[in-house]
């Protein structure tokens, strides 16, 4: 299947016809609704909140935010004027802005309770023009997103990475910006798999990202940090006998001249008078 990201930049790809097609297709509406509801579930908002919708398009996801229980107020941002024109025609409740998320979000610190983004952030990885660096754009986006969310705030970004490399690039940019990050995968190993990047801004109740899915059914948690921790533990401590043996072993494999092991290897020397 061809990816729209591979053809044109987003503001040109979503022209009038494409925007209308996107908004009226019942299949896309359905998928968007499922993803937005899932994102809302992950955000777990209990009171009416102010939400930023990044890449709001024609307001398909925004409509669900307005109709949710409790009803939320949202501000949407998109780069495609045609998409926003469709949103205006549909008279959505949220306020709309024309803007490029890769240029940074123009909001002051601590503005929003939460942010969602449905099928948008993979566009940041495009290199459409000369002098556009996806890494810079990603870090500008995540840095400004981190700043404009309030403490204890959360963001859920559903996205379609081209491959694992792109996925890791997006995740590491988010972690670099300071977010606690986790990936949730719905329907894994199928054609319909959906990736959600769940981000939390530090705070008391938000320290551990796995807490987001603690009360959800049918979610397996795979914690990559534990593996890292175990690996760090497995490494021999600097200066111990085990560490010396390991070092000698690697040098031997490299073909260097290494003194043979004996019972004195790595032993402390006695005090000399």
């Amino acid at each position: 299947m061809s990816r729209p990201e591979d053809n044109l930049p987003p503001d040109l790809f979503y022209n009038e016809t494409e925007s209308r097609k996107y908004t009226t297709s019942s299949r896309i509406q359905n998928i968007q609704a499922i993803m937005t509801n899932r994102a809302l579930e992950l955000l777990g908002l209990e009171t009416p909140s102010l939400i930023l919708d990044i890449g709001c398009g024609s307001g398909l996801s925004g409509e669900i935010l307005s109709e949710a229980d409790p009803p939320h107020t949202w501000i949407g941002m998109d780069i495609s004027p045609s998409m926003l024109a469709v949103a205006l025609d549909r008279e959505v409740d949220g306020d709309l802005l024309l803007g490029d998320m890769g240029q940074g979000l123009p909001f002051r610190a601590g503005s929003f309770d939460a942010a969602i983004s449905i099928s948008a952030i993979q566009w940041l990885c495009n290199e459409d023009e000369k002098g556009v660096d996806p890494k810079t754009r990603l870090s500008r986006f995540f840095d400004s997103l981190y700043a404009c969310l309030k403490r204890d705030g959360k963001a859920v970004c559903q996205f379609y990475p081209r491959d694992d490399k792109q996925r890791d690039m997006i995740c590491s940019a988010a972690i670099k910006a300071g977010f606690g990050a986790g990936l949730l995968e719905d329907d894994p190993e199928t054609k319909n798999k959906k990736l959600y990047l769940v981000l939390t801004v530090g705070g008391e109740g938000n320290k551990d990202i796995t807490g987001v899915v603690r009360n959800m059914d049918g979610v397996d948690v795979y914690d990559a940090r534990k593996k890292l921790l175990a690996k760090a533990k497995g490494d021999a401590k600097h200066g111990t006998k085990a560490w010396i043996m390991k070092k000698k072993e690697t040098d031997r494999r490299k073909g260097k001249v290494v003194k043979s092991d004996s019972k004195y290897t790595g032993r402390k020397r006695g005090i000399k008078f």
Partner: protein
Amino acid sequence: MKLLTANFLSCAVKSCKSSPLSFPLHFRDAELASKSVPYNPLLLSNLLPRLDWTALVTSSSELGFTLPATKPLLQSENIGEEDENTLKMLHKVLMETEVVEGKMVCGSCGFEYGIHQSVGNFLLPSHLV
């Protein structure tokens, strides 16, 4: 653009990030409209601590109406009659007042963000990013 949104927007130009003048953006040649929105007292009381009241007073005076100089505070957990009036006023100002056409200007660099059909244009030319 609602006044609520305007209260959170600051200039996105790189050199303005550290300048205190980049917030709030100042309205010019604004054309107003009123749009009815469902009243949501809980959301408003949630938002109240986050609002920058001085900025709100500045933008509303630019649009030609006056607000009390100090931020109204809610009396208690339960919404009484006085609080109800405050919230109704806030609802009218923040949610129902919209700038349909006009410009927003940064106080620091003077960049003009156009507002057209109540959608603000925050795309920057690449040399300013």
